[in-house]
């Protein structure tokens, strides 16, 4: 087991390096965008004097590297800084919305992962049957539409005038658990439809790939039921690629849902990122970018650890 721990530590260290590089790239990229915070926030009503005064007040008149290292040293002390726009601590701004984003991702994953694994296994079992073709076709159809279109269709079918579900999931007060499930159902379902195809087809392909192996042939010759062959014998060996795809999709659920947030008025991190980039609110942009990057790093790490654990040859090293 010890080499797994050393892998985890090594990967975590590399993860920090990744985060550092990401922060550097994001900072540089935002600097390259035309206009700065003072100009953007004053917009059409900017005058040279007010822009200059605002820059001075916020320290934007400092050279780029000084601002970057100032930010970096704060981050290393665990201080995310304050929003340039309204002085709210970035940690607070992100904290609230990160909770929302994670719960939506979790909600969608709780539907999507069992659904796609189940469908994938069944599709492998009944491969080339009508069921297999139908499941594939509908999953591919829903992934092929842009997210907002899927969202509109769901609103049209399930919200509307005497709708079962609310068309906007905006909640101003903390909802109870069941109320949350009700209000956030449509965005979760939209995300489910968007990510299911990828995971389902990977499950199906990974299993079918194994079905030609001699040990499966052996199991079949022993007279095992097809379902048992797949679940007991094929699936454990197909887990590694499936776990990786699941992790990739989970990361997507955290970082890539801004369109769904906008359509369903769901207050998550995506909109925060978009607004902050538009206003060049650097500390918030950096903070959110770090969270997104960290989500990818951690999920990939988890996937690798789980994939390793699913393979006895790697767990019990020679």
């Amino acid at each position: 087991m010890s080499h797994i721990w050393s892998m985890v530590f090594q990967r975590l260290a590399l993860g920090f390096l990744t985060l550092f590089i990401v922060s550097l790239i994001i900072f540089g990229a935002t600097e390259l965008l035309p206009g700065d915070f003072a100009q953007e926030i004053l917009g059409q009503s900017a005058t040279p004097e007010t822009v200059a005064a605002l820059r001075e007040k916020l320290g934007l008149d400092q050279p780029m590297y000084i601002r970057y290292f100032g930010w970096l040293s704060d981050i290393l002390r665990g201080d995310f800084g304050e929003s340039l726009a309204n002085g709210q601590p970035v940690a607070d701004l992100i904290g609230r919305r990160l909770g929302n984003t994670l719960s939506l991702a979790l909600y969608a994953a709780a539907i999507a992962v069992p659904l796609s694994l189940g469908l994938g296994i069944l599709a492998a079992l009944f491969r080339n049957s009508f069921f297999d073709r139908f499941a594939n076709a509908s999953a591919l159809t829903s992934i092929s539409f842009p997210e907002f279109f899927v969202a509109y269709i769901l609103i049209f079918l399930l919200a509307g005038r005497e709708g079962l579900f609310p068309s906007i999931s905006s909640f101003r007060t903390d909802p109870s658990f069941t109320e949350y499930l009700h209000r956030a159902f449509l965005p979760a379902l939209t995300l489910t439809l968007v990510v299911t195809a990828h995971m389902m087809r990977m499950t199906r392909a990974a299993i079918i790939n194994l079905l030609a192996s001699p040990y499966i042939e052996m199991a079949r010759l022993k007279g095992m039921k097809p379902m048992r062959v797949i679940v007991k014998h094929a699936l454990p060996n197909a887990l590694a690629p499936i776990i990786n795809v699941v992790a990739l999709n989970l990361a997507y659920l955290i970082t890539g849902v801004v369109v769904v947030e906008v359509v369903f008025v769901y207050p998550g991190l995506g909109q925060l990122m978009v607004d902050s980039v538009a206003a060049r609110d650097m500390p918030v942009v950096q903070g959110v970018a770090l969270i997104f990057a960290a989500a990818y790093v951690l999920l990939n790490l988890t996937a690798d650890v789980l994939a390793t654990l699913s393979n006895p040859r790697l767990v019990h090293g020679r």
Partner: protein
Amino acid sequence: MSRLSGSHGISRRGVLQGATALGTAALITPYGTPLRAAPKRGGTLRVGMAHGSTTDAMDPGTWEADFMIFQAHTRNNYLTEIAADGSLVPELAESWEASADATQWTFVLRSKVEFHSGHKLSAEDVKASIEHHLGEDSTSAAKPIVEGITDIKADDLTVTFTLSNGNADFPFVMSDYHLPILPAKDGKIDPTTQDGCGPYKIASIEFGVGASYVRHDGYWKAGLPYFDGIEQIVIHDDAARQNALLSGEVDYIDTADLNTVSLLERSPGIEILAVTGTQHYGLPMDTRAAPFNDVNVRQALKYSINRQQLVDTILNGFGSLGNDHPIGPGQRFFNTELEQKAYDPDKAKFYLKEAGLDKLDVDIHLADAAFAGAMDAGVLFAESATAGGININVVREPNDGYWSNVWMQKPFAGTYWGGRPTEDWMFATAYSEGAAWNESFWSHERFNELLVKARSELNDDLRREMYFEMQDLVANQGGTIIPMFAAYVGAYSDKLAKPDQVASNWRNDGHRIGERWWFA
């Protein structure tokens, strides 16, 4: 109403309020009966708004978009108020008077006005609230409009402003949304405060998401407001916002998508609110740069644009024709004698010849950030201009950073103005020489002279004469094409009731829907 071109027959149903002539209510009631039940109290108004960013802030000096401006009028009061008919009425100031040269203005405040926190309104609060926007290190967007104030004296309930130059419209300036009266402490306001003396208290606010308000029971306006509370929800997506109204998640939306508004109109229980006031879209040319430095070239371009087509297609009929000056038909000194420019390629050719050209090639730099539909408007303009021998190349610019990199940087671009309540304010902001936002870099001696003269003139007849001439000058000598005045188009559930006249100075009944509307 005649200036509302309605190819869609807007007046057919719904309530539409057109160009608000001062004092003459231009209103068509839906069923022809002016009878209304008396307003009653109760209910929570849920408002869906198209704007609102996580980068909004409480500081009044940063307010620019509708979410915060709505918040401002819901939570705060101002010294003066623009009434629904466009006239100026007292709010926190009970009365005011000016010195003969209009350089000194004395406002007498109402007694017994209380802030939500219980703090009593005094002249010190007014002084501190205005001073927040003044001074060298001011970062306020309102700095240019209060810059003329050289001194503020506060004495119990009397505030005296001394101005560097006479300004007959100064009380109008005090109604600007950046200038709410906030409680002062030790001579300064706390710009992050959520206190105010308006009709509602803030219960909670989350920028870019929404805000909740509850009624301020000690509000000084007797019987107001009618709602128990207000929920303000940011819904950026047009379809989501309209769906929210249709499914009853909100009672009112501030912006309806012009492309689908006719569908929305057909839904039962939904009414459309369209108000044309001072909001206008323009195409400023840099009058210092060739070829726009020749007034004949500018005139040729002004006759090459098909205004009616733009109103019909870009605004879907929700607006009126512009005449290349920024004064709306509802304003006090709107020039009624000025001939309306129309699409006329022959005239365009004539002016080109005057400029010594037989054809003209220009680039126009546009993005939809300038105004909704700006790209399409540019293409239509290019198309109609070819008949007059003008070849316009429409350059698509990114929305992001438009105001810092394109507007007033490229010689020919697009712009929009929410408009200003007075002629002087509008002209001084965007047409006077040296003004920070003089987007056409226009400098016209006679115009600038008239502007200063009219500002301190207290005789209305003389002022009218001067403003008429100034509108003529801007329209026929100036550097901005103003093809259309755009209506504010929103929609609401018929459970809501509204007063006979709806203000046209801003969206949302002058952003005062919270104290002017009620549940039927």
